[in-house]
């Protein structure tokens, strides 16, 4: 079913390239929030969000309106984020365990005055990338399991399993709060 976004895409493909800006304005904040939540670094988030739109522009001819444009865009953004996390982990093995060695890369840390929020943020950082992606898309971006499966190119069952494991891992790491009441 064609969406309004699909009509904008058709205009761009028909030669009205300036119409792409409509899509950028519409989704730039959503995509930035996603890339920020995945990287927790404002500069990386900005670069990845910009790259998302550039890659979307290049690949626009392949979008056929069978999924929502936002889902298609999320897929590009998430691929970029996961690749970024992979290369960051190679450069800094400490990140694999979720212990960010360089406090400058975590601008969120300064915002979190609550100990529990800090613990939650650190627990998310320690998740395997696919689980972190699933949790982010589900809880923070509000996608359905089916949409998450489309974004991460996996089955809905896998998306649900990743979500379940991610939440379980957070609960385990935050057990001390349960014991504290």
């Amino acid at each position, binding site marked *: 079913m064609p969406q309004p976004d699909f009509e904008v895409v058709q205009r761009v493909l028909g030669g009205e390239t300036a119409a792409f800006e409509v899509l950028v304005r519409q989704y730039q904040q959503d995509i930035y929030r996603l890339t920020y*939540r995945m990287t927790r670094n404002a500069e990386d988030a*900005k670069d990845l969000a910009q790259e998302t739109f550039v890659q979307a522009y290049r690949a626009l001819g*392949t979008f056929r309106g069978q999924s929502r444009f936002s889902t298609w865009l999320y897929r590009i953004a998430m*691929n970029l984020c996961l690749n970024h996390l992979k290369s960051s982990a190679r450069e800094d093995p400490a990140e694999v365990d979720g212990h960010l060695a360089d406090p400058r890369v975590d601008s969120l840390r300064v915002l979190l005055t609550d100990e529990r929020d800090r613990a939650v943020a650190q627990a998310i950082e320690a998740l395997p990338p696919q689980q972190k992606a699933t949790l982010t898309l589900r809880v*923070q971006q509000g996608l359905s399991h089916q949409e998450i499966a489309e974004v991460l190119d996996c089955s809905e069952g896998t998306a649900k399993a990743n979500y379940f494991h991610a*939440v379980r891992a957070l609960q385990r790491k935050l057990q001390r709060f349960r014991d504290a009441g």
Partner: protein
Amino acid sequence: MTGCDEIRDRLLSHHEDALGAEERRRVEAHLATCGECAREARLLREVLGRVQALPVPEPPAGFWEEFGAAVRERIGAEPPPRPSLWARVAAWVSGLQGLVRLRRMPALAAATALGLLLVIGLVRTQQTPRDLPPVEALVLSEDLGIAQNLELLENLDVLEEVEVLERLDLLRRLNGGRGSRLS
């Protein structure tokens, strides 16, 4: 009596309102009588609430203007995007369907689709590196989706009249006002 482990396995589904009515009642009945599981359910709610509420720092003033300008500048250096080869094939084939009635000329349709598939396959094979970047992979998967939708592929059983392909230009010209006579 329902076991605590079994109930805890269902707390996330319960939180997401994804349980059936009967199971939901069973979980809630257990939570009403089991303090440990009720605490576990509270922790789950709190954790998910905090995950959802984790802030994204507000970008500085002028951020979005600069962001938009940077994207504009970068895509300005790109060639204008065009419908993918598959999308153009689909549009072209769709136009061809108006030119000839496929029921009467299945060989033309089937041979056209098969020929295009082979050509595209060759082009893709030559252009696709072993390590696909993410968007390239995305493009390929989207293209494969189109292949599944080509109704013409259902007519692959008749391939004898391949030579008709050579007359496509003639057919197109004839279609200018007299398309119906071709069917």
